[in-house]
């Protein structure tokens, strides 16, 4: 809409308007090239830093053997289940806390303590309580994803402008109507920001859980490769994890653009 205001001269080409379309792959080639150059030039051993070609081979064999798919499906289920539990509980408790200043002020110091404690540190405890299976990973993922959601739900519900509340009051809206029609939609952009952080955290939680104790999953695969000094194998799994993270991020972006379309960032496509 804004770019159509330039009425003079010919319409600028796609490359002039969005040079990053060329620059992004160019930088990629540059990074891979220098990586290869440094590893070969300095004769760095494979088990310290593998060459890009070896990583590609390891990644490809992981994909074709079906090993990545099975392990990634496991890790992804842990992360997503943890995320959904965190989203549900975070929204529920955030909403309850936001209803009352007294509850908020009472719980505030506790929330700060819990929030500033690294939740990852309780992973070994959760393994003791819930075992080596999927349950403990879901709990760890949910624990780390819960707080960004909780905090953003509270902040979002508090951030509504007074005039919207006043408008609802002038119509004698019930508390539930005000929540459903004004507070919750107003909070959605902030809640979404929390969900985007939380989904990344949930993968982190699942991987750490697998590090602490597991039989399957991408985290476990990294440990196995580590034991065998298969550094290229570790890098391969990292590529796999990066793809997983980017995919989830893009899904969240897409959801955000659809659900909170009215915010400036959703309209311009920036984030």
């Amino acid at each position, binding site marked *: 809409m804004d770019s159509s205001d330039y009425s003079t001269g010919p319409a600028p080409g796609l490359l002039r308007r969005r040079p990053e379309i060329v620059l992004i792959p160019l930088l990629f080639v540059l990074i891979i090239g220098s990586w290869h150059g440094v590893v070969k030039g300095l004769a760095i051993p494979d088990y310290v830093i593998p060459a890009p070609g070896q990583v590609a081979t390891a990644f490809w064999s992981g994909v074709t053997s079906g090993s990545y798919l099975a392990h990634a499906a496991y890790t992804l289920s842990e992360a997503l289940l943890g995320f959904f539990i965190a989203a549900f509980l975070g929204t529920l408790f955030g909403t309850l806390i936001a209803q009352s200043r007294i509850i908020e002020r009472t719980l505030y110091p506790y929330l700060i303590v819990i929030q500033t404690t690294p939740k990852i540190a309780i992973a070994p405890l959760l393994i003791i309580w819930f075992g080596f299976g999927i349950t403990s990973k879901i709990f760890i993922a949910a624990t780390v994803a819960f707080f960004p959601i909780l905090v953003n739900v509270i902040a979002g519900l508090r951030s509504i*402008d007074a*005039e*919207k509340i*006043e*408008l*609802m*009051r*002038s*119509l*004698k*809206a019930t508390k539930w*109507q005000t929540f459903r*029609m*004004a507070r919750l*939609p107003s909070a*959605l952009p902030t809640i979404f920001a929390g969900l985007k952080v939380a989904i990344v955290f949930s993968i982190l939680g699942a991987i750490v859980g697998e590090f602490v104790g597991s039989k399957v999953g991408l985290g476990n695969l990294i440990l196995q490769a580590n034991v065998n000094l298969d550094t290229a194998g570790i890098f391969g799994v990292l590529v796999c994890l990066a793809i997983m993270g980017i995919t989830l991020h893009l899904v969240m972006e897409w959801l955000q653009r659809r659900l*909170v*379309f*009215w*915010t400036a960032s959703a*309209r311009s496509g920036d984030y």
Partner: protein
Amino acid sequence: MPAAVKLMPRPAEAARTPIIQLQEIEKVYAARDGNPVQALAPVSLEIGTGEFLTIVGPSGCGKSTMLRLVAGLIPRTRGRLLMRRQEISGPQRDMGIVFQTPVLFPWRTVLDNVLLPAEVLRLPPAKSRARALELLEIVGLSDFAAKYPFELSGGMQQRVAIARSLVHEPSVVLMDEPFGALDAMTRDTMNLEIMRIWREAGTTILFVTHSIPEAVFLGERVVVMTPRPGRIAEVIDVELPAQRDIDIVNTDRFGVYVRQIRAHFNAKGLD
């Protein structure tokens, strides 16, 4: 001026039944330092059914306080507020309100924004929809029913807010400097429009402004208020043709009213 008399179809002031009565209403705030601040000295005022009453005064004269007291958004310290001779407190479903800013919900289309009061008040959907579309026609926004607020200019947004204030067919509409944020030309257009809407809808309008010409142009009566403490200095019957256009501001008679009102503020060392 027989022509002017013919153009004034409304009954004379004394014959009109009051719809809103303010009896010795007073508002005292507790200031930050603990000392009470009198925002509104005891004021008494009767607003006739179907009347267009404007309230004008500099900032701090209590005009917005008075409007918000009538809207039931803030409690009065002393005095009685009557609607149709019944004492009232709190917001009334039979009132509509337009704020200084449009206060539209960005996640709702223009039509759905207009329908908000109907939804809150649980009015029959089909009938409300027809009424909302009719109001959008009146404010000249029929083609924008499916658009979102961020696609509209400031003036258009405020017109949506006016349509919203009328959708539940309230007897009284309260307007708190609704055109204060608009540029002078849009403001003139909006003033003509609001007069047309008032004539067509037959609603009682209580209109707060800090613009003296706007108050004279719109009002059948103008309530002049002065600050410290906020009180009514004079109530002026404006005897101008009911069918007014913008050129009337250049007539001698209009100028007399403007000077008469300004004298109150000059005497107090305000302007």
